[in-house]
């Protein structure tokens, strides 16, 4: 419950503060969002499975975002930014889909 309220507060803060993203950080934003979504759906699924762990969730979120950012940064420096980003999106996308399917099975039994 606290988590959902915190999410709502975060969204509200983002909407009202309207922070401008520095130009250098802009390429990382989409990847960071995908990584965050992966952590969130993983957490929700773990909660439904009854094995949610706060520390695991926070660590997975932070490390997801950091690793995704690092990969994009490396890709940029190596000149293969697009391909590496695609790899990140594919892997995280597959995990998001799998977790959402599990959540769906939990909620609708289908």
């Amino acid at each position, binding site marked *: 419950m606290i988590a959902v309220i*915190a999410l709502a507060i*975060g969204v509200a803060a983002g909407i009202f503060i309207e922070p401008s993203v520095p130009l250098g950080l802009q390429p990382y934003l989409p990847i960071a969002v995908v990584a965050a979504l992966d952590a969130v759906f993983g957490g929700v699924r773990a909660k439904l499975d009854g094995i949610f762990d706060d520390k*695991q969730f926070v660590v997975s979120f932070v490390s997801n975002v950091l690793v995704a950012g690092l990969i994009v940064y490396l890709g940029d420096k190596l000149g293969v930014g697009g391909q590496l980003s695609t790899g990140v999106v594919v892997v995280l996308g597959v995990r998001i889909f*799998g977790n959402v399917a*599990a959540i769906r099975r939990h909620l609708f039994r289908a």
Partner: protein
Amino acid sequence: MSSPRRDDLLGELFRNPLDPGYAAAAARRGDASPPKSGRWLTAAAMLAIGFLLAVAYHQVVAAAPGTTKARADLVADVQARQRTADDLQRRAAELRTQVDQARDDAVGDADSAARLKALAAGTGTSKVTGDGASVRVVDAPPQVDPVTGRAAAENLGLVTDRDLQDIANGLWQAGAEAVAVNGQRLTATGTIRAAGGVILVDFRPVTSPYEVTAIGPPGLADSFGSSGTAKRFKRYIEEYRMQFSVKKRTNLTLAAAAEPPLRYARTPSPTPSGGPTR
């Protein structure tokens, strides 16, 4: 199907998308309830995630190409002005009927009123109804290269202003008494011209499909259909894949053309003698 291999990274990802850390942590924890302090950590992470989502959304909205925005603005502007123009046109039609009514009342003399009406119908400054014909011409679709799927740069089957002029003249020749192109009534001073690839009828743009409607004698469609102009267009159907058809129509209503504006001439102020002034 081959048996799953241990080093099949994507397969492993598909089978088991959940971070194995959760299961490991649960196993480590055993039956003990989770520590409460972690809740606030999770809340902080969720706060950060929500903030991230909102920022990303803002970013996407802000990065929406300026051209798209400008285009949307222009479209809205055009639509608003079109609505205004439609309103004005409706008002003009209303006023025109009022003027006609007032003129009929003022003339009083039934003969002159009828003559005036006939003249107005003939010159195109009043609405007319009747049976007649409609001629439809449509631009040929662009030639598409079957290999590359790209449209050819030049399309020879486009309807030109000259084509519409010929059709209108052919209809007049076949005895039409009133002609309109896409609803634009033609008058003695009406023009069909092209500017920048757009056909203008009385300086108003018309686009394909072009529909030239005319009111005339019963055999109008047939006599136009057998005229040289129609024959030429029928040839265009085969050569350029242009579309062309002549149809007999009943109960056509052609709108009035705009009154030609007088730029230099003025109606004289009423003089007592009524004679020419020096």
